[in-house]
């Protein structure tokens, strides 16, 4: 197995995530796309661990998962907040401040 199989998959996921992040209007969908990106990083880390025989990547991945969870929680809280104030979670409408 080539390490690049995993890495390339990670790259593809990353880019799909990026696309999602940029294209999606719905805040929840954006959060989902972010998860794709974070997963691609985890794949990378674990692939490298496997390649290099190290464990640090595993630890790193665990940290990322935990942080991601926290982030999602915070993110959703904010989504709820704007939803309550604006009755919409369309991100592009959030442009009260600009210029």
């Amino acid at each position, binding site marked *: 197995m080539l390490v690049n199989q995993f*890495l390339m998959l990670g790259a593809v996921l*990353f880019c799909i*995530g990026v696309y999602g*992040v940029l294209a999606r209007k719905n*805040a929840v969908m*954006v959060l989902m796309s*972010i998860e794709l*990106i*974070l997963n*691609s*990083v985890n794949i*990378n*880390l674990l*692939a*490298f661990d496997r*390649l*290099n025989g*190290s464990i*640090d*990547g595993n*630890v*790193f991945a665990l*940290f*990322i998962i935990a*942080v991601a969870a*926290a*982030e999602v929680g*915070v*993110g959703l*809280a*904010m*989504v709820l*907040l*704007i939803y309550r*104030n*604006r009755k919409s979670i369309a*991100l592009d409408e*959030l*442009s*009260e*401040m*600009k*210029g």
Partner: protein
Amino acid sequence: MLASLLAFARPDVDYHALAPEIVLAAGLCLVLLLDLFVPDHRRWITGTVAGFVLLGAFIPVATLAVIGGDVRSLFDGRYVIDEFALALKGLFLLAGYVVVLLSSNEMEEGGYHQGEYYVLLLTSVLGMVMMASSRDLISVFVALEFLSIPAYMMAAWRKRDTKSNEAGVKYYLLGVFASAVLLYGMSLLFGLAKSTKLSEIGAAIGDGSKAAAVLGIVFVIVGFAFKVSAVPFHTWAPDTYQGAPTPVTAFLSVASKAAGFTGLVAMVYLAFPMAKDVYQPFMWVLAALTMTVGNLLALKQTNIVRMLAYSSVSQGGFILMPLAVAGTGDAAGPALKAVVVYLLIYAATNLGAFAVIIAVSRTTRSGEISSWGGLFNYAPGLAVMMTIFLASLAGIPPLGGWYAKFGAFRAVVDAGSGWGYTIAVIGAINAVVATAYYITVMREMWMKPAPDGRVSAVKVPSPVVVAIALCGIGTLLMGVLPGSVARFGDLADLTHAFGG
């Protein structure tokens, strides 16, 4: 199984070295508990306690600094308390304290959740304090999130204000994007170096000729560039600064930015110090763009906070400037000192400016620059202090800012390269452009009549007065006797960290 459990070696912990973090963590819990048990009308006490916690955490920093001695390296060199770390820890804690001073009235009168607010603030400061010492990828990442996640929420703290919401969401989303990019970069660096320790990464990456290394370096820098709001990763900053509660803005523009630079410096100096062909051009472009774009946009602003937001973007450019030549010639040392000194001076100055804004906007109830008209007539003290802070930001001697800029220029000139001189000239011109918008505020205060003919004096709450006084003294002192602060810059030496 058991054997392996027993094989686990309890790490040696230098509790003195970790004392600031421990004090902060304990204080954080204390505030949380207080918040639970203190009646609503006494919630202000949480702020007071938070302030004391921050000051308390400063004590061990001070003792560590005074004792000096060898670098304290913990956890196999993953967490290092050197002078660089101590200088910045001190900065974070004091900045945090000033922010607490600024917040107390704002939070109390706004009816916000004070206790939780201070918990988040302390958490964020704790993250920063950790950032200053983190010397491996995981610590850096965690510290970054540690300081960011509470900050995202603080930005949105004025819950019923849609602008505040917007500020929080934008900050959050872009922050997450940036940390995603950062993480990917880190994963590549880790893959190449087989280690998370920055020093080992530095050794493994070498001059960074591998494409993967380049990609990793660029992505890592992008992650921090977001944090320090370098153009073009600055887009969140104006919106967030404008929308967030002003004390939070002050916190973000000073402490959070400083933390970003701390991480960036650690990465540059430890994780890829030899890959100067990669990071130097990138930093160069970032610095030039940041200074210029920040300034040009600031020129157009009518809202003072937004203007200061762009100003702080552009100030970030000046701090980046030395890093653009950090690998050339003998510039490494001066560049590091320049960054640290700049951060210290900038912190005092910018916090002071925000403090005055808070004081003034309590009366004017407006963020527009035009509402500052005639301030000199009805509140000369505030006007003079604001003038001092703005002039310091503009870099006019004998106010602190000049020394900050001096250091930055000196570092780039020290590099002795054409690139260095070029960016020095760009910086010099930008310093002038920047003056243009600082001066519009001064003009408003000194030369225009009050928009509504106001004549009565402004009542400034005492914590804000203390904050303004602290910042003012700092700004002046660092300008007149820069040696006092430059000593910290001198101490800011990361080189010990190379070894372990």
